[in-house]
Every structure is written in C-alpha cells, then in structure tokens.
C-alpha cells in the first residue's frame, strides 16, 4: 500500500473518533457532564488485558456538586428538586478511558452517559432533570468501557 493511502486512512479514523465523541455528548440532552481532574495525567500506562482500568473509590447519588464534592447525598429525592446527580470518584486509573452511567427507571433504561476518565484519579458525575413522570424506583448502573457493571446505586424519586 502506498504511503498516501495509509495517511488518508489514519486521518479518516481520527476524524471519525472526533465526530463520534462530539455527537455522543450532544445526544445527552438531559445531561450536564462535568469533568474535573484533581491530579494531572502524568503516569499514564498502556492498557493490558484482564486488569480493571480503574477502581471505583466512591459513588453516590446527591442533589448537588460543589467543589467536585457531592452535596446532600440521599437515596430518596423529591421530584421538586428538579434534578439528581450521580457522583463517581475513581482511583488507580491506568490509562485514558471512560465509564458509563446507565440510568434505569422502573427497569427501563432512560439515559446512558459516557464519562471520560483520566489517570491516575478522576471525579466525574452525570445529572438528569426530573419530571413528574419520573417518580418511582430508579437505579444507576456504573459500567466500565467493556460493559462490566461495577456498581449499582438504587434510589427513589418521590413527591
């Protein structure tokens, strides 16, 4: 294969990745995603098989985030609050990857959000707006990039 063809393929792949990332974020219309690295990415390692890419240090449901800390953690939220946040802190991040927040209302997946994770420690969260029809039992499943469920947070939205 000629050099120009290789270059074209590599360029095309980069463009596709950029476009994909952009549109996946844009489709989360109910979600605000904020990333706040506490420690700079200095010791990134290359991925190896079988080892988890990160460890969940903390995952809670809360009403707000202040200075990248969850505020008003709870398992029951009033619909009057207007929104809920799922906060997740991960440690031992071995390489750049992402985690997924899958929001499930009454066993129906309502939103799936992909959140960027950077070595070696990362805090992130996803947020949904609440409507009257959102009352009932909820859970947020936290998954790694391979689709493994790492943790499930259960809560209810009430009057």
């Amino acid at each position, binding site marked *: 294969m000629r050099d120009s063809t290789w270059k074209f393929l590599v360029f095309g792949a980069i463009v596709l990745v950029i476009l994909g990332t952009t549109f996946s974020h844009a489709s989360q219309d109910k979600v605000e995603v904020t990333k706040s690295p506490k420690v700079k990415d200095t010791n990134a390692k290359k991925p190896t098989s079988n080892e988890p890419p990160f460890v969940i240090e903390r995952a809670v449901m809360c009403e707000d985030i202040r200075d990248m800390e969850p*505020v*008003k953690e*709870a*398992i*029951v939220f009033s619909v009057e609050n207007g929104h809920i946040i799922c906060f997740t802190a991960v440690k031992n991040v071995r390489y750049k990857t992402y985690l997924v927040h899958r929001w*499930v209302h009454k066993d129906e997946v309502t939103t799936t959000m992909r959140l960027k994770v950077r070595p070696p420690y990362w805090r992130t969260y996803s947020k949904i707006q609440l409507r009257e029809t959102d009352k009932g*039992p909820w859970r947020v499943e936290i998954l790694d990039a391979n689709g493994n469920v790492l943790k*499930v947070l259960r809560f*209810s939205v*009430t009057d």
Partner: protein
Amino acid sequence: MEVIPKVLQVLRTIRPKDVLDIGIVSFVLFRFYMVFQGTNIWRILVGLSILWLLQYLAASVGIILTSWALQGITAAAAIIIIVVFRNEIRSALLVTNISNFFWGSPRHKKKATPPDIITDTVYYLARNGIGALIVFPGNEDISELLSGGLEWDGRVSQEMIVSIFMTSSPVHDGAIVIEGNKIKKVATILPLTQRQDIPTFYGTRHRAALGLVERSDALVVVVSEERGEVSVAKNGNIKWINRPQDFKKVLMDHLGLEAPSRRPWRKIFSQILIFSVFLTITVGVWYGFTRSRDTLIAISVPVEYINRPQKYEILDTSTNEVKLEITGPSRIVRGLRPEQVVVRVDLSTAAEGTNTFPITKENISIPPGLTLVKVRPGSVTVILDIVITKDVPIQAQWVGKLPPGKRLVSALIMPPSVKIVGGKAVLKKIQTIYTSPIRLNDLVKSGTVTAKLVLVPASIDLAPGEKDVVEISYIIVDDTPSPVNEEMHID
C-alpha cells in the same frame, strides 16, 4: 358407504344412561302392549299413534294447516278415548296387579276357566238340543252392556251349566257369564245387534251374541236349540264350529290358555320380536330427539392446557379461549351449560419454544347429542420456557414525601436479594424485585420497617424457603441548609 362410520360414531357417543333410557321406555311400551293387547284400547292407541305420526310428518314438510288440524284431533281424541274407555282402562289396570304389569302375561293369571269342561258341556247341550248363551268376557269391562240377570257365583261344572239351561230352570232365559272357574251371572240380557245382513235362521241368541261382541272383546258361545249347532261370536263376527277340538282351541285362545308346553319357544320368540319392534321404535325416537340438528349455538370456551412437562412453564399463548359453533336439538342446546363444554390441549409432547397445536374434535368435549360444527381459531400457539431460579436484588420502593428538613441517606435491606423461580425468558428481563410501597410521610428518624415483595409478572414465584417479607433499616438525617442559603439568610 358412509352409513357405517356414522352408525359407529353414534354408537361411540351413546352413554350407559342412554341405554338405560331406551331400555326403560321400550320395556314400558312392551308391557303396555302385553296388558292391552287384543282389546279395543290397543287398537285405538295404534290409531292415535298413526294420527300423531301423520301430524309430525305434516309439520316436517310444512303443511301447516293439516298439521294444526291433526294436532287438534289428536289432543281431543286422547281425552275422548280416556273418557269413553274409562271402564276398559280401569278393568285392565285393576285386573293386572303391579307384578303382572312388569312381568309375565297378565291375562294368564286371571283366567282359570276349565276349557275341557266347557267344551264337553257345550257339545252335550248341542247334542241334546238345549239352547245356551255363554259369555266369556275379555279384558274389557262389559258390566254396562249387560242388563238384568242374577248374581250366581257358582263353580263351573257340566251339571251346573246344563241345569241352568234346562227349559225347566227358572233362569234358562238369557245368558250366563263365566269368569275364571266361576259362573258370575245367569239370565242376563245382552244387547242385540242392529245388523240387517245376518242369516234369517239366526235367532235371538245369535243376535244377542253379535250385539255384545260388536261392543266388546268378549267371546260369546251360542248353542242353537233348533239345529243343535255351536257358534262362537268374537270381534263382531260369528261362526259355526262343528268340531269340539276347534272350539276348544278358539276358547283357549280367547282365555289366553294356549298350551304353553306345546311350543314354548314360539311364544318367547314372538315376545322377543314384539319387544324388538318397540326397541326399534324407541331407538328411532331417541335418535330423532337427541341427534337432530335444528339449533346452532356459538359459545366461547376457555382453553385448558394439560399435561405440561414439569420443567417448562407457559410463557405465552396465542389465545386463552376458542369460539365453538355447536349444533343439536333445541332442547339439548337450550340446556347447555358452559362448564359442560371443555377444550383441552395436551402439552405432553411440547418442547421449549413455540409449539402449535391444532384444535380438533379430539380436544373438545361436548355433551352427547350435540355436534361440533366449527372451531375458531383452528389452532393455538403455546410458548414454553424452561423453569429456572435466579437471585435478584431487592429494592425498596419509597413513596410519599419526607417531613420537611429530613433526608433519607441510606437503607439496608435484609435479605438484600431473593431467589425467584420462573421461565428463563421472563427472568432474563427481571433485574430487580421491588418491595410494596413504603410511605415516607411519617418517617422522622432512623428505624426499621418491613415490606412485602411484589412479584411481577404473576408467572414468577419465590423459590422454596424464600420469605416474601424483607426488613429495611434506614437512616434519616436532618437536612442542613446549604451555605449559600445561610449566607442569604444572614443577609
């Protein structure tokens, strides 16, 4: 060639009680025949039956006016016959006791008239030119046809009869009545016939004999004084009998004393034949009554799925009821109850996944006498699933609203999960078992509540040993106001 399968089909649907039904009616008809045979009542009953048949035929071919007229005549005739023949009916039923009605020949037991004595006496009288008139009643009551006379009640003997009819006897005029071995009446007057076509040499005795036999089933013996002849009148006719053995035979026939020892099989065969005729008639009526198809009904019947293999459970079915169109006699159709019709689908041969079973006559149970015309749908689809056990986490279902300033921060459910049993495909979709709703409104501090588990869908169940109640320990904290709000409050 289609007749044989049809007959076999009918035979297959006959129940033991149908056999009993037909047997009872045939036997009752046969016994009625035995009791009333030879009498005018029997002939009238036959006439009525023909009338009824004609009416039925007229109705079936749509000759409305004729059918209506015949129906009226039949109804009126039935009442008139009962009134006119009340005496005959009474005598037949009175003479015949209950045991005689159900078994044996009713006429045999009531007659014990000695035929030999009568025969010898009659021909003795004839030889000696002594006129006589002797009445042997049949089944019918003739008391109203007789007038005058004396009650006698003397045992039958040649001497007794001869002495009665001797011209020197004060009771030699008129007739004597012999019942059994008794002379019941003497010097009784019989009604005279009104016929003009009888021979001129017949005297008053012959006219009286004919007059009685025209009106009853009695037998009257006339001994001519002038010619020394013996004549026998019966059924409106009179005939001269020269030979004593012929006379004896006629007499015995009338008395029902036909020598049983001579040809017993012949009598039995004759009765079997008569019974067979009644049996055939009854079967015909029964068939017409129970197998006619003059009414069509459509009913919805739930489908029963039977013999499901233990390892499977029914995940879904295409239908739970089928619509049947059933035809049959209106009497049976009108009395049909839904629980009498059952549709069963045998799942013993079913496999995991989708199974289709045709609904045929073999699947459907309907009362005898009814015929299945159509089934909709013609088949059912049953989806079977393997029964498995799954460990599923439990989630509390909070409802209502916490008191102001309170926040529910955690809850520990014991046990945290539960084992449920159900179809593989159903359990695959179930990720959580929820509790029944727990109200928040009254929760002001940490504590413990119990709640029942809600199993949805209904096809799932708790595994053996699992409890359907969980205990939830919860922690409630006071909700501290946010710093921003505090600052605003201070301001």
